[in-house]
């Protein structure tokens, strides 16, 4: 509303003969030039080839995962604005920009020389193209390889290839260590991953399903009817009948679920996972992003598996 009044008063001023003389922000020329380092670069992404003439100085991230990746590869200072859900790491410049209803003018107002998105909603990719702002579309990773590739791409685009390579080596090493620490079982442990209170879950074909697979776990949703979608909705009966060894709750932040709320659901108190205290409350964010914190996620899962070993408390 303030903006409308401002514009109306400007209109009135103009009509009275005086002109509004403020010099507006200049085009997005970077003041500093990069020191050689392989620029210009071209990388391939979901929106085709993306070329940057020089290293970006002002990145706008509309994807929480991309924000995490950028900070993890040491490109955090280049991020001038992040979307409203980019809550990690602590120092991320969160704004009220939306990744779900992106507004091209609001993004352009930050004068970015690179925008990272994970969803092409509201035609944002073509809108940014129309105003000549380089944009890279990194959709949700289908598997770990995708996630690694995205980190590599961001490393190349920001000129931080070394940090990216180092991060990937660390991640690979930790993930390997975690998955080999899980002892083989004749009968794999089963699990149920809850996305929300209406019992939507994931199959093992999803990104997160594959991470669970690294911990040697089997998903009860794979056998369910309607599992031709990646995110089927299960019924309470099916879950109780399948009696998973582990229950992982990814709806703790959004929907307030916890081991206690699960235990009071009618019929659920008999579940092995409930009586054996194997209901694990996950951090919604860690469980839904495909960035460097996927290692943290695997750690939580493996820890839960270890707790179920005979002889452990």
């Amino acid at each position, binding site marked *: *509303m303030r*903006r*409308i009044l401002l*514009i*109306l008063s*400007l*209109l009135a001023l*103009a009509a009275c003969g005086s*002109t*509004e*003389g*403020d010099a*507006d*922000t*200049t*085009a*997005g020329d970077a003041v500093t030039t990069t020191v050689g380092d392989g620029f210009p670069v071209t990388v391939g992404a979901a929106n085709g080839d993306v070329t940057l003439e020089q290293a970006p100085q002002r990145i706008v991230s509309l994807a929480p995962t991309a924000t995490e990746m950028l900070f993890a590869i040491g490109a955090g200072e280049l991020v001038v604005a992040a979307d409203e859900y980019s809550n990690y790491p602590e120092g991320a410049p969160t704004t*009220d*920009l*939306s990744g779900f*209803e992106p*507004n*091209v*003018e*609001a993004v*352009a*107002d930050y004068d970015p020389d690179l925008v990272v998105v994970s969803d092409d909603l*509201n*035609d944002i990719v*073509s*809108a940014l193209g*129309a*105003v*000549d*702002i380089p944009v890279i579309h990194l959709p949700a990773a289908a598997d770990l390889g995708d996630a690694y590739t995205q980190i590599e791409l961001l490393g190349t685009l920001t000129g931080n290839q070394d940090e990216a390579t180092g991060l990937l080596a660390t991640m690979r090493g930790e993930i390997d260590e975690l998955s080999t620490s899980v002892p083989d079982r004749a009968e794999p442990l089963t699990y149920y991953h809850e996305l929300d209170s209406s019992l939507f879950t994931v199959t093992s074909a999803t990104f997160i399903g594959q991470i669970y697979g690294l911990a040697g776990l089997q998903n009860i949703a794979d056998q369910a009817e309607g599992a031709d*979608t990646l*995110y089927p*909705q299960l019924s309470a009966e099916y879950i109780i009948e399948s009696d998973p060894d582990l229950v992982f709750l990814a709806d703790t932040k959004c929907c307030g679920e916890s081991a206690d709320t699960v235990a009071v659901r009618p019929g659920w108190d008999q579940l092995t996972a409930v009586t054996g205290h194997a209901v694990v409350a996950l951090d919604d964010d860690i469980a839904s992003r495909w960035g460097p914190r996927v290692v943290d996620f695997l750690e939580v899962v493996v820890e839960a598996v270890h707790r179920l070993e005979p002889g452990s408390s």
Partner: protein
Amino acid sequence: MELAHPIPEVRTTRAGPTLLVLVLIAVTVSALLGVLVGAVELSVGSVLAELADRVPGVDVDSGLSQRESAILWEIRVPRVVLAGLVGGMLAMSGAAFQGVFRNPLADPYLLGVAAGAGLGATLAIAYLPDQTGWPVSPLPLAAFAGAVLGVATTYVLGRSATRSRSTATLILAGVAVAAFLTATQTFIQQQNSDTFREVYAWILGALGTVGWQEVALILPYVVISGLALVLYRRLLDVMGVGDEEAESVGVRSGRVRLAVVAAATLGTAAAVAVSGLIGFVGIIVPHAIRLALGSSYRLILPLSLGFGAAFLILADLIARSVLAPAEIPIGVITAFFGAPFFLLVLSRARRM
């Protein structure tokens, strides 16, 4: 003596030029405001200079950077033009429907346009999600086809239900068809639960556009539909006294109704295809004009075009400014205007 359908007031042509000027001013002012407001601050002077620069023969340096110029010409101006075309078309269709059904509460979505377009859009969103390989986005095409099929079904149903070509039958058929199509749409949404968000966003209406594609898509339909409706406006006045009275002066009311509905539906379907379901424009604008200037469609139809355009441009301006950078769906803004307007109309009608 009270006539079954009161004879509409006829105005003299002397009011014409004044009204024309008024309409042009309304459209120009609202368009200018629409173009000036946005997240990126563009000074009034440079925007006017940039607009002037586009006039052939005029060469002015506006001082805008390339990016700002692109924001103006690729984001803001197409959006304002689209809002104007959609608003004008919906208002004109609303006026036409009000004339054809002799009811000031008729709106262009009456005969199943909305439900048909909604179903078409849902089908496109659910079963054609990957649109990158298509030269033209299938969503507007599907919505358009759905809208037209919805009205066609209503007409066939209405005609076959009874031999008389009364308007009541047609409207009831429209209600039945809309109910069926909406139920089908809901079913498809349930089967494809990940489409809910996108379908909902489409239904609430959105005028955000990049480039001039959507304007180009809708322009021919607005022109054709507009011309057809404007040619029929005197006949609408005649039909306003009643079907039998109109037949007695040689007007074939069934044919006229079909032609007007067809033209209005074509334009409405095109508007809905690019902008989703924006309600209340088709009711408020023609009715407000009627309250101010009398019931002659000779005036109401062309004026609806202009004032409808101005109305929607301003509504869109509000929708994208109030909660910036978030945008309120434009259907919500028009509804906020519509509900009090209805109360006003009803209270006035009760007093009369």
